[in-house]
């Protein structure tokens, strides 16, 4: 039986996700986006389990909280998905459904954004134990974003 792809199952997944969530506490930070988009450098982060075919697959059932750095130069054909908790039928045909790096690069060519960052980030969204995510993975991502002087980040789940 497929575990994803119909509303009943997805509503159960949603309820499960609600039990698992970790609400952010206190004041929610807000960094103003002031640079004009056509001059800005953007990075994508997805928790849909995207990575290069040459990188290790995610250990989904273990709640893998590691990150894969995805270089800007890669093509859609270089990428794969190893998350198993959502319906991948569209994304397996077209990775842009969950990781629109090719579209982002097109926006740069069209002059709508400044550029796509050198590095983008693939994670897997099923992380029951968030300790390593908070103490290792997120700082690693922030360090790379800062090193590349990324101006804004667009995230999507999986």
């Amino acid at each position, binding site marked *: 039986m497929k575990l*994803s*792809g*119909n*509303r009943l199952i*997805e509503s159960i*997944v*949603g309820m499960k*996700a*609600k039990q698992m*969530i*970790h*609400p*952010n506490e206190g004041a*929610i*930070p*807000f*960094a*103003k*986006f002031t640079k004009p*988009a056509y001059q800005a450098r*953007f990075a994508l*982060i997805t*928790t*849909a389990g995207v990575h290069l075919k040459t990188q290790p697959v995610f250990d989904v059932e273990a709640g893998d909280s590691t990150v894969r750095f995805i270089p800007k130069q890669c093509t859609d054909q270089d990428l794969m998905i190893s998350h198993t908790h*959502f*319906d*991948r*039928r*569209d994304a397996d*045909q*077209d990775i*842009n*459904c*969950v990781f*629109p790096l090719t*579209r982002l690069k*097109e*926006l740069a060519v069209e002059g*709508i*954004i400044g550029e796509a960052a050198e590095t983008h980030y693939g*994670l897997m*969204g099923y992380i029951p134990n*968030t300790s390593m*995510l*908070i103490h290792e993975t*997120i*700082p690693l*991502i*922030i360090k790379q*974003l*800062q090193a590349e002087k*990324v*101006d*804004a*980040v*667009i*995230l*999507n*789940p*999986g």
Partner: protein
Amino acid sequence: MGLIQYGIEKAGIPTISISHLRDLTEKVRVPRALYLRFPLGRSFGRAGEVELQKQILMDAIRFLEEMTEPETIIKLPYKWKGSHER
């Protein structure tokens, strides 16, 4: 994903996320989100929908600029056509 978005924004880099479950995103509390009634696995549309994929990215960029306070969630107008099963 909310923890990642929170951490990056706290480090001073503006963020916006796509949400498929509005009440979940309200509970998690993030700086900026776009709510889209598409099933998971289609945050930017279906396979081959190049223009919609690009449009949703441009919406994200526009609302990065336009949102003025944290925990803002805007519903995008796109309708999911057909059922999940095809």
